[in-house]
């Protein structure tokens, strides 16, 4: 079972803190990888917050391919950071040759473009780079977005942290928001793109569990947005539906829950908003999910949210101390990093709830 987690803080956090949240949750042969998306960056990226940042793991050839591509598209590289890796012998990590984080300026003709146009350009560019790298198997591009960085690798999370010197807490790579997961999706082929958190246009999501409506979700989502691709994991469905409901349809967040786990018809009938809920259920029936799962997501405004399947078959807890809020699969993780918090304020979201941690660290509970 995947354990998932997220941290949101008023202060910059080191990724090591996320590892400390996750490692106590390990059971059995869990923890076969490490992946995180961090947002609202400090450290070496602090000066480039409005510049789209590309997260790459690739070969030398792949790095050159991307460089050429970006150049021809008019992107101007203004910053590059290569994490100083620690190649200790015997580490359990299947490392890629290069990890590269590059911040760019938009092409000249996009400087005055609308935010929406810029966001579409970033998506198109990421998809193109992905296709470019996939063609000759030269690497991976995980995200291309301002103030967002992604790191994914296969292996033991502790060793991955050693390799990337995450335990050193140097202050280079820090952020106020971290979404993290310590297990590759081992029910499927182990590939880096199958590792959550998944990212699209400012939306980040990871999930714990199964989505047995994967096929019907996938078949529908494919036609909704060109960015809905990959589907290496059944958890990507959750992200694409979140992106679709919030960004494309522009519906309030509580309706995400009505889309993925609609109320039974008998319950809808009793509600004053039954017309709206019935229409949502019948129109978006192919985005309904099934199976046991919990999701944790981060939104473009850096809000965090979590919700569960309609039967509450996977755990999740939200808690914090006012300075730092954490959402995670199991309470032991929170106890490790936030032992002093008031546990009476911990929230165990129900099967009909969406819990949101706002940018101001307020906790909102939306009952379906």
């Amino acid at each position, binding site marked *: 079972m995947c354990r998932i987690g997220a941290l949101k803080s008023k202060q910059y956090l080191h990724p090591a803190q996320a590892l400390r949240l996750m490692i106590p949750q390990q059971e059995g042969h869990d923890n076969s990888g490490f992946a995180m998306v961090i947002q609202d960056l400090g450290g070496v990226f602090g000066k480039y917050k409005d510049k789209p940042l590309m997260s790459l793991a690739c070969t030398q050839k792949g790095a050159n391919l991307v460089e050429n591509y970006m150049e021809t598209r008019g992107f101007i590289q203004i910053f590059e950071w290569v994490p100083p890796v620690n190649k200790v012998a015997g580490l359990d990590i299947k490392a890629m040759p290069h990890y590269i984080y590059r911040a760019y300026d938009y092409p000249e003709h996009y400087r005055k473009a609308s935010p929406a146009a810029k966001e579409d350009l970033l998506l198109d560019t990421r998809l193109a780079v992905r296709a470019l790298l996939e063609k000759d198997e030269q690497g991976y591009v995980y995200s291309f977005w301002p103030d967002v960085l992604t790191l994914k690798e296969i292996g033991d999370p502790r060793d991955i942290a050693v390799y990337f010197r995450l335990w050193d807490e140097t202050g280079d790579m820090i952020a106020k928001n971290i979404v993290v997961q310590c297990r590759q999706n081992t029910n499927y082929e182990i590939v880096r793109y199958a590792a959550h958190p998944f990212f699209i246009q400012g939306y980040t999501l990871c999930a714990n569990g199964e989505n047995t409506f994967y096929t019907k979700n996938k078949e*529908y989502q494919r036609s909704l947005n060109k960015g809905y691709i990959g589907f290496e994991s059944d958890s990507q469905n959750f992200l694409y539906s979140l992106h679709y409901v919030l960004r494309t349809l522009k519906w309030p967040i509580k*309706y995400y829950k009505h889309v993925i786990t609609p109320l039974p018809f008998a319950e809808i009938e009793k509600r004053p908003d039954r017309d709206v809920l*019935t*229409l949502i259920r019948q129109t978006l029936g192919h985005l309904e999910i099934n199976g046991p799962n919990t999701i944790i997501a981060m939104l473009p405004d850096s809000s965090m949210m979590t919700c569960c399947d309609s039967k509450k078959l996977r755990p999740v807890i939200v808690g914090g101390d006012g300075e730092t809020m954490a959402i995670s699969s199991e309470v032991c993780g929170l106890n490790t990093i936030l032992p002093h918090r008031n546990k009476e304020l911990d929230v165990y979201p129900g099967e009909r709830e969406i819990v949101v941690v706002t940018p101001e660290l307020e906790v909102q509970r939306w009952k379906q």
Partner: protein
Amino acid sequence: METVRTQDVSVNDLPWKIDWRDERCTMCGSCVAACTFTAIEAAMERRSVTISTGHQPEPAQRHSAVPVIRQRSGTAHICVGCGMCEKVCPNKAIRPVRNEDNRVNLLTRAGGVAIKRGGRNNIMADRVLDKVIVGRISQMTDPSLDSERHTFDVLAPFGRVLLPGELPFTVNGDNLELTAKTPPVHWIYPLIFSDMSVGALSTRAWEAIALATAYLNEKCNIPVRMSSGEGGMPVKLLKSEYLKYMIIQIASGHFGWNRIIKAMPHMVTDPAGILIKIGQGAKPGDGGLLPAAKVAEHIQAIRGVPKADLLSPPNHQGLYSIEESVQKMHMSLNAAFKFRVPVAIKCAASATSVSVYNNLLRDPYYICGGFFIDGLQGGTGAANEVSLDHTGHPVVSKVRECYLAAVKQGRQGQIPLWAGGGIGMTGNAAADAFKLICLGANGVFIGKILIQLLGCVGNERGRCNACNTGLCPTGICTQDPRLVKRLDIDKGAQAIVDYMVAFDQELKKLMAPIGNSSLPVGRSDALVTTDKAVADKLAIQYAC
């Protein structure tokens, strides 16, 4: 010694031979009275017995005339194997036995008349659904559900569903508000009692199905709907509250619509839907056919016609294209009920079904509320045998193709797909329904199995299939008042209700192991097949 006349028809030329046991028979005559086809008769036969009663052989021959039950040998009174004689015989003295060596197909076109019959296709017995099984069982991380305790949403849409971007919502604070009217969509049970008309069925049989429909809705929480078939409906029902459970069918003959239209001002509720019948799986390209033998006085009254063969045209006169059908028929039927009642269309499965479905999906008025595809294993009350046996299209791949065509356009679910034709043919309609739903159907419709539940003994091996004759031995497909009384309405309705309650359990028993609490529409990943060709065609997993 008699001369052999090879062209004479003998009992051995017929599909069924009567096995009559002289020694068990009391000559009560029940079997002769029960045989609606007059295939048997009481007759006298000359018997010759040689006996010897003394100590020494002293043979003496005695001739006597004895009464017997005898099968008639001509083609005018062929035994159809219905077995009513056996059912009625108190002594188990008589039964029909299938005669594999019969020559009936060569004998029954006498007078140059094509063979007509009821029933189903009797040649294409191959059932793809039986080669497909539910192979994706949830275990470990995605637990199966408990079918006994879990609550399931077993409902399907009937009506036109909008695309997300077409929903008339505005955001008001944290809420969505509906700002305009949307097409009517009814969420009903994913199984519809299919279109068998009053006329094709006896009034009693039709009433039994209507009774079961009402009972399932009112008492069993199974919101099943019944389609009237082309032939109108009793006016009393049209004006009653129970109309809400009925889908009124209109076909090319428009039979019964005079009365329906006249009843409209008096309707106290809307019908569940309107179904435009374009074609029928059992006899695609043919219109409805009600032989004069079945056009009794009450049928003449309901349909407003004289006693004659009632042939619906093979197509709707005046409609030349799909667009025209949508613009005229769909629109006028929608308008007739002030756009409150969903209007769907039923076509025979055909090599062209996907084109029709694609076209309907582009309906700009949002008034096509369902696409019913009827496969070749659907039944009929009367058709030319050549149509029944040699025309049609299997429904399974066609439903799948339509669904995938919609998937390609991101329009799956917009016009609900309903599949019929042979559902429950091997007895388990729930399994058939489940598999079709996984392949993309929203629901299924059943017909033949309903009358089988009422007592119809017809099958796909040529048994009975005499629905067209007006002589139905079970009182289901006849208007003969004497025969109709053979059917007990309450018992018939009870059988349908029992079957449906079990169907509901069985459907849940299939939903539970794949971990679904709502219908798995399009969950093709739940199915596997051991037939590679089927796997390729349906795009499901091959297993061996």
